[in-house]
């Protein structure tokens, strides 16, 4: 049963007179409950636009979004969603526990639950030794980890992660990957965007390839490799994009 569904999702950015930039064009896909779905694409392909539309941060030009049976602006639905933005920036004067408490309160969680989760999540992302450190003193990797913890403060059913391993060192990447697989085992649905092919290949059940605002293809890696007659994700990625660019040139 899909927990996330988009139908002909379209976003145009209007930049001055007669200048329209396509953010997303007629994108339809669905994410099943309990799976990890990866959105792949080069920079500017529409990955982040898509995630922002799903979270109600941007307004679609056209199309529909359905998350847990509700539209993207529904407050009750958002209580079940966790989000990690790309290169997360937070209130840098707060410490890790203060940041998690702030977000926990916005979810209207009882203080006792918030306290328990802060302890658990800081341990999970290995930041329990940095409890008294303000975020402005955090490294990029630490910020990514506290962001991940913040996205889990409400124990969400759905996790939306925008480039979750950007800024992480190789060990951090492996730890994040293991964490995502663990969360999947716990029954969470994860939608992530990335341009790291190996990361997507290892954790995602299904993938979608975006380019220039279009959804080029979607399915399991095995299905797609068969469909395109390729032997790996890298080859698949290059082939789909090249085919699209070729068709576009012919037009």
């Amino acid at each position, binding site marked *: 049963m899909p927990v996330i569904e988009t139908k002909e999702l379209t976003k145009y950015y209007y930049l001055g007179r007669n200048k329209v930039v396509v953010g997303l064009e007629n994108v339809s896909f669905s994410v099943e409950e309990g799976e990890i779905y990866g959105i792949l694409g080069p920079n500017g392909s529409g990955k982040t636009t898509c995630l*922002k539309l799903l*979270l*109600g941060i941007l307004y679609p030009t056209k199309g529909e979004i359905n998350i847990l049976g509700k539209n993207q602006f529904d407050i*009750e639905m*958002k209580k079940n969603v966790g989000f990690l*933005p790309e290169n997360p*920036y937070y209130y840098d004067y707060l410490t890790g526990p203060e940041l998690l408490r*702030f977000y926990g309160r*916005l979810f209207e969680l009882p203080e006792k639950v918030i306290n328990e989760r802060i302890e658990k999540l800081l341990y999970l992302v290995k930041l329990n030794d940095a409890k008294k450190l303000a975020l402005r003193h955090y490294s990029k990797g630490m910020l990514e980890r506290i962001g991940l913890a913040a996205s889990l403060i409400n124990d969400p059913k759905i996790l939306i992660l925008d480039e979750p391993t950007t800024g992480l060192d190789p060990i951090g990447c492996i730890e994040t990957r293991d964490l995502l697989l663990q969360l999947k085992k716990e029954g969470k649905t994860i939608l992530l965007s990335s341009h790291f092919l190996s990361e997507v290949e290892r954790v995602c059940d299904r993938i979608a390839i975006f380019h220039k605002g279009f959804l080029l293809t979607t399915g399991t890696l095995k299905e797609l490799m068969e469909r395109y007659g390729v032997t790996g994700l890298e080859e698949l990625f290059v082939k789909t994009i090249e085919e699209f660019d070729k068709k576009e040139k012919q037009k």
Partner: protein
Amino acid sequence: MRKVWIIGLNSFRESLRKKTLYILLVVALIVIGASKAFSFLTAEEELKMIKDVSFSSIEFFGALIAIFISLTTISNEIEKRTIYTLFAKPITRQNFFLGKFVGIVMILFLNFILMTLFFMGLLIFKKSPPDIQVFKTLFLIFIELILIGSITLTVATFASDAFNIIFSVFLYIVGHLTSYGNQLIERTENIILKGLGQMLYTIVPNYENFNIRDKVVVGVEVSWNYVTKTTIYGILYILVVLLIGSYFIQKREI
């Protein structure tokens, strides 16, 4: 309402970190303190001077703080991209906007109280404890500051910081001159100009309504009736402005 309060408290904490706030506060306290320097005046004149300078400083520097804090509170969230994580949470955009307003009121209150306490200290030092007229004056100044802050905050929902600061300062000046403007309108014979002028006179906030210091300093008593009416005017204006801001924040693409 709890979410509004949580966002407001966080916004307040964020504003407390702005150095400009402290610079303005220190300058205001120096100016208020300097009013005591006119020791060549008679005791009564000196007291008038202290009151006049202090009221003016609290109002002027309070207005600068209101504009400065309200100007950047939303744009900072957009620039630092913290707004993305906020809007992904179960809050409405109105919660966010009103939270920002609450944060502004808190920071204005803190500054206002600090300046007021300093002023009160001066009055007590001069063996002239503040009377009810002084409190009425200060109360109306505070309402005016909230109104200035709410207008700048609302403009921040749809305009750039550069436009907003020019607009807010311009409105602050014009808002103190509307009474003179009205006199000019009445003298004008051109119907179009008169209509346009009257429309502007109705729309532009009349900040002079909140100014009773000139009367209080010279000992003229201001009635409770006037204070109540002006307070209602201020609150209604703030509510309308916040409604407009709520509409624009809802429409805004981040």
